[in-house]
């Protein structure tokens, strides 16, 4: 297996797992005591993953939030500046392709891997309207323990945890559809053709930042 592919597989597995872990809700079912959390909707996974993989689009969404809420401007200014100074749009960006409903990447292998290691349990069923498919992802107690005991000691992976918490802080209350709609507002995202990678908007982010704060990013 190519080393780059191996690295990519590892990153995908961790990232998807952490999305499920940090954005899942608490779950208690005496009949299923092995599960501690549940995450609903694959669309939501895809949209959160898009924000994780594209720091420039996250900055854009944060600046739009700051435009709408002046109380948030100082903290968002610091966040966006740090993202830029740490060269995240250049180093941490992982492109995603545009499919029918926006940015999408197949996560079946990742889910299979996590399921095979007993980190998650996956369930999909038709909705009451018999048209939609509802997907649910249960986080196991085992995974929960693993995170608590191991993850905190791994410095290189700290960034993922912090980023998930950042996204959760400002956008955790949005469902998949809401996140999708929001991302569709962005011209570059909307105008990307099917099957093409969605391009960077760091220049737009700099312009908005300058217009909002009167400073250069």
């Amino acid at each position, binding site marked *: 297996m190519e080393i780059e592919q191996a690295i990519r597989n590892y990153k995908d597995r961790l990232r998807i797992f952490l999305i499920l872990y940090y954005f899942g809700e608490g779950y208690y079912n005496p009949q299923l005591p092995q599960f501690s959390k549940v995450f609903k909707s694959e669309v939501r996974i895809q949209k959160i993953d898009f924000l994780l993989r594209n720091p420039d689009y996250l900055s854009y969404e944060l600046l739009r939030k700051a435009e709408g809420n002046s109380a948030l401007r100082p903290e968002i200014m610091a966040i966006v500046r740090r993202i830029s100074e740490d060269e995240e749009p250049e180093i941490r960006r992982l492109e995603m392709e545009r499919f029918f409903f926006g940015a999408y990447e197949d996560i079946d292998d990742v889910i299979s891997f996590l399921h095979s290691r007993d980190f998650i349990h996956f369930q999909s069923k038709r909705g009451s309207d018999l048209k939609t498919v509802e997907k649910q992802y249960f986080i196991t107690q085992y995974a929960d323990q693993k995170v608590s005991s191991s993850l905190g000691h791994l410095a*290189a992976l700290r960034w993922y945890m912090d980023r998930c918490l950042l996204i959760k802080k400002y956008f955790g209350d949005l469902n998949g559809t809401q996140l999708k709609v929001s991302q569709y507002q962005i011209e570059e995202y909307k105008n990307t053709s099917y099957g093409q990678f969605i391009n960077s908007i760091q220049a737009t982010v700099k312009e908005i930042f300058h217009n909002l704060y009167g400073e250069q990013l």
Partner: protein
Amino acid sequence: MTFDYDQFINALHQQHKESLSVSQIEELVGVREDYSIDTPDSTGKRLIVDQIFFSGKKKTTEVQPYAGDEIFYKQSLSSGINIWVADNLKGKSSIFKIIRWAFTGDSSLKNNIESWIDQILLNFSISEDHYSIHLDVTGSRPVGSLFRGTFDELSKLEQAGDSLVFSAKSATSYVERIQEFFFSEFSYYALKWTQKASQKDQNKLYESSASWKTYFYSIFLESGDTANLTMGDQGKKIFQMLLGLQYTLPINKLMVKKDMMVFDKALLENFHDQPDGADQNVDHQTTMRLQQVNQELQEISEANGAWVQIRNLYIECDTIIGVIRDKNRKIVDLENNLQKLQSEHHGLVLEKAHIESEKTRLEKEIQKAKRKILDIEEYLEIGIFFSNLDIKHCPSCDHLVTDTKKIAAAHEKKCAVCNDPMDADVEADKAIFEDKLENLQVVLDGLTRELQNLPLQDTSNAVERKDRDISQMMSHRAELSDTNELTKHLGELERQIELLKGAQKSDTEKDKFIAEKAVLEYKIAQQKAIQLKPVINYAANITLLNSAIAMLNDQRYSIGQHVLSSLSELMLQEIHALGLSSITEININEKFDVMYKQDGEFIPFSGIAEGEKLRAKIALYLSLIQLDIEKNFGRHTRFLIIDSPAKEEADDNYINGISTLLKGIEERFGAELQILIGTAVRGLEGIVEHEYITPKDQFVF
């Protein structure tokens, strides 16, 4: 034959007693001493040049190989024929002109020769008496001195002491003193003639006289002067002086007197032609008109005097033009510097672009390295996170994967799910990645250092500095280019000049007024003259003078006939010796016209063919000298300079004729005369003893 002055007076009185008394006649015809001055008998003196020396440093405004050559030319000469043979334009004529300069004080050298001559020392003899002439022409005013004795070196002149005859501190003074000397030695005097004034507003008659320089034409036959038989414009005067026939002086004086009287009489007669009764009006009208003309001339003078103002305006124009030119020169220099700066700027801009491009590349490489480092770090840690996780369920069928199956698979190094072989050594893989990480860090450090070392800031600063310099220079250029004010001022000055020039009258207009003024003054002078009772009986006087001149001419011709006949015979002999056998007789009349009989007809010198004139002229001079030597008649100095005697004659007969003649003269008269000859004809080499040969293409000095 002694002139009987009293008989002469009586004879005149007989003719004119009704109009003139004896005393009046005596007063008119002059003093009796004048009538015994002339004699055709030779003085017996001869002029001979013993040595010529001159020095200087050749200079020329063009680049010539001889520029700067120091010249010390010395040539001792002998009695008889002395011949220089050299190519044309190599200095022969200059030597002769230098001799003439020393003898007369008058230089006819070309400026490019005269300008570099410093010293001339000419040793000469008049019969047995030796003299030296020194001309120092180093200063602005030449100093000419005559010494008794021979001084063959300049340094010896310092001990000349009592030998000095005279020293003249100016050219004019030298001319006067040397003339006085030679006139005294050879019994020459100044024959005179009358001529009208050359100025248009002057109606006068002047008296001119022959000088030593004039008589020197009989000595120096220049190559360009073959058109006339005798020498210069006053040839007959020179001829008369050389022959020395009796009564030449009184005839000359009476003729001048007569010319003056004829002129005065004519002035008077013009006034007498005016109709009677018109005098008063003409007088007033003439006076008034003269006043008007004087007024016009005054105005013209004032307007033309504005030339000073015009000149000053031109000077100011020149100054402004100079300033504009200076500005233009500075603009050109500025443009050159600007071009240089712009070229440097361009270079710096390119360099900066290159550095920025390099910076971009390095930044990308750094980001790439950081990504790889990040990926490997995450991979290792994710590996750690996931490494102790055993597979629990088959991802495909979700069946449990038993421990037994897992142990067996591990033992066989196979996957417990798909049975494919597993990669070996996790620790070895980890070591490899850690190595890679280390290497990437080194690369990253290197790239970072390289980025920090890029001289982008320095180059940017240099570009900015150049920008500023260029901007300053362009601003300066704009200032210099602004010559509007100067151009405007120049235009105004030119307009002023045109105005002033327009006010000036042309020379033609001025001349018209001057001519009219001359006529008016003449009329007024006539009127004033006529108001005085005429005390001079011009008619009677002129008639008497004519009679006296006629009588003297007859007597001169009668007494001098034998001299003239001898001369004619000698001339014919020499002409035949020179190859002109077509001339069969030569006649000199009482007016000193020389007539040549050719083909049965008497023709003047001007009627002789061009190719034969030079020989006829040489024949005359040689004859004059022979007249002195053989017959003891005449006052020629027996010294002759002939420049290019073969100039116009191309045929062998002539060359042979000249050769034979010169040999003959050398044999017969070598001890009695000196002839200096300059020629380019190599055929004349070897015919006489004293020859100075210059090889082809070389200069004499």
